[in-house]
């Protein structure tokens, strides 16, 4: 079933349209930076964007920083919201279930394919950004500088970029699980996607509110940008680890709720 879901995901036009759309913004940013040479002021704008003017090889990280707060989660919400509700809309859910595909296995396969989508989307964004950085942006000579000012060797840089990549993928687990739950609760893929986006907006609003201090560790968006911590020297693990654990917790709870809701739900369409 997992193989079937993966092949379905790869053959869907939606998947590729979404990935192209994801690449649009970083590409525009790269072009604008190359033309104007104006970086954001310190403390504003996405991470690493000021550094790419001198070192274009950092642009994959900057691109991840650009898509991570909004575009990537929206894409995951759309793809995840489509998981079950989309099958209902194409009248195929009942035929999968009478095949029979067990409902639990269907959920697992759907979740796997959403995560595979995240991996694919992030990989494409990073590769496109790498090419853009090489072609359009600054060519540094003295090696990569960490956020803390020290020099990073090629190996260190490769390791940390790899970890950042994994972290970004893990950061989307929570969104994927929420979208999956909502997708089992409604017959409309759009409603499920919008619900997930609403959840993310609420989380982002609360994150900016001092009065919400006590709930902040529980917010799904809380540790998203902590992948920057991987490029400090020494690496600051606290938030990275908290972030991964928080995402796993979201995954367990929301995927569990999706299972609780879907396992005996009447499939009326």
């Amino acid at each position, binding site marked *: 079933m997992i193989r079937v879901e993966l092949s379905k995901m790869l053959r869907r036009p939606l998947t590729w349209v979404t990935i192209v759309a994801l690449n649009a913004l970083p590409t525009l940013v790269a072009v604008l930076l190359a033309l104007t040479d104006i970086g954001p002021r310190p403390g504003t704008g996405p991470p690493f964007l000021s550094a790419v003017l001198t*070192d274009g090889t950092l642009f994959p990280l900057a691109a991840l920083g650009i898509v991570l707060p909004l575009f990537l989660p929206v894409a995951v919400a759309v793809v995840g919201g489509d998981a079950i509700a989309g099958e209902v809309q194409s009248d195929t859910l009942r035929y999968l279930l009478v095949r029979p595909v067990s409902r639990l296995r269907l959920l697992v396969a759907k979740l796997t394919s959403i995560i595979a989508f995240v991996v694919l989307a992030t990989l494409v964004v990073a590769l496109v950004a790498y090419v853009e950085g090489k072609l359009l942006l600054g060519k540094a000579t003295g090696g990569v500088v960490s956020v803390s*000012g020290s020099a990073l060797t090629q190996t260190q840089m490769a390791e940390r970029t790899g970890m950042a990549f994994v972290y970004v993928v893990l950061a989307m687990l929570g969104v994927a699980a929420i979208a999956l739950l909502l997708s089992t609760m409604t017959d409309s893929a759009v409603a499920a996607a919008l619900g997930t986006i609403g959840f993310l907006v609420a989380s982002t609003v609360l994150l900016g509110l001092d009065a919400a201090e006590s709930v902040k560790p529980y917010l799904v968006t809380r540790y998203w940008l902590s992948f920057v*911590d991987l490029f400090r020297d020494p690496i600051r693990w606290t938030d990275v680890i908290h972030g991964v654990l928080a995402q796993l917790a979201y995954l*367990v709870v929301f995927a569990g709720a999706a299972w609780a809701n879907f396992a005996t739900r009447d499939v009326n369409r």
Partner: protein
Amino acid sequence: MIPATRWLVVALVAAVLASLPLVSNAVPAKESRIGATALARRIHDASDVGWSGEVRSLGSVQVPLSGATFGGVARLLGEETRLRVWWRDPENWRTDRLRATGETDVVRDGGLTAQWNYEDNQVSFTPYSPIRLPGDVDVVPAALARRLLAGARPGELSRLPAQRIAGRSAAGLRLVPADKRSTIAHVDVWADESTGLPLRVQVYAEPAGRAPVLSTELTSLDLTRPTVDQTHFTFSRSIHYSRGVSLDAAAGANAYAPFIPPDTVAGLPRRGRAEDFGAVGVYGRGPTAVLAVPLRDSIARGLRDQLRRSATSKETAVGLEIQVGPLSVLLQRGRRGNFLLAGTVTTATLETAATDLAAGVVRTR
């Protein structure tokens, strides 16, 4: 499994996961029997304890200042600051101020300080000098507690119940300034039971104030002394270097102004060794403090404009005054030059101090 059971299982798992972040600080703190004065002494002696960890400080005093010179002070007093700190001793430390998109590091390596800013891709080296505006290191609980408790009298000190901070038992100490001129109601310090290292400092402006005007605490702590490497600067060769005379250019340059401030203002004695501070005067005791800095005309003008724009500022016979929370600020324009006075004292006290300063300052050139 019937649907209700499944939902119950999910709810239980959610509850367990949600309670995990609360567990580490849920262990009750051990109450210690140490006396207030002894605790204050132990905190004072803990300045040589080496440690590393993270500091979170939150200020709620909105100072209407911005820009390169005073913006940093306004940020420390009014916003949240997150620091990674490596502390070998008071002369060898490193503070990394974390931002979502970069960081600003200050490293003191004996007589040398280096300041690194990621977004500017620049590091500047300056010789260490006590004359500087408040910086990130001043909100590190260990540094702040020592400054606020300096010269405290036994009658001002009392014990507070222990609390668990950064996973450690911390003994509490309260300082209520006896000085009526102070705008600080009380200062609460919690220090690690075994080493005396301050873990949390809270400054209150009102006696029954619910929220502190400044609160800083360690969110994680490792009590092993950092190695020399950890507090030493190792920089990539592809960054910009610069050398300066002072950490904050404006305040530093002004410190070499041709003035000698008087020994007391408004009855508050001058602090520290006079030769260290040059033209800058630091007065008072503990949390009752006044700072007097001479300013060049160009900087004074900019500052005056910024203060005037604030709705709460007022022009008095002595100068341009503003009070924000417990902090009083007065910009004086005298015959002998411009002085900025700032302190945690009442505005009346600050006016007296300004008058005393104008009368007592000696011009050397």
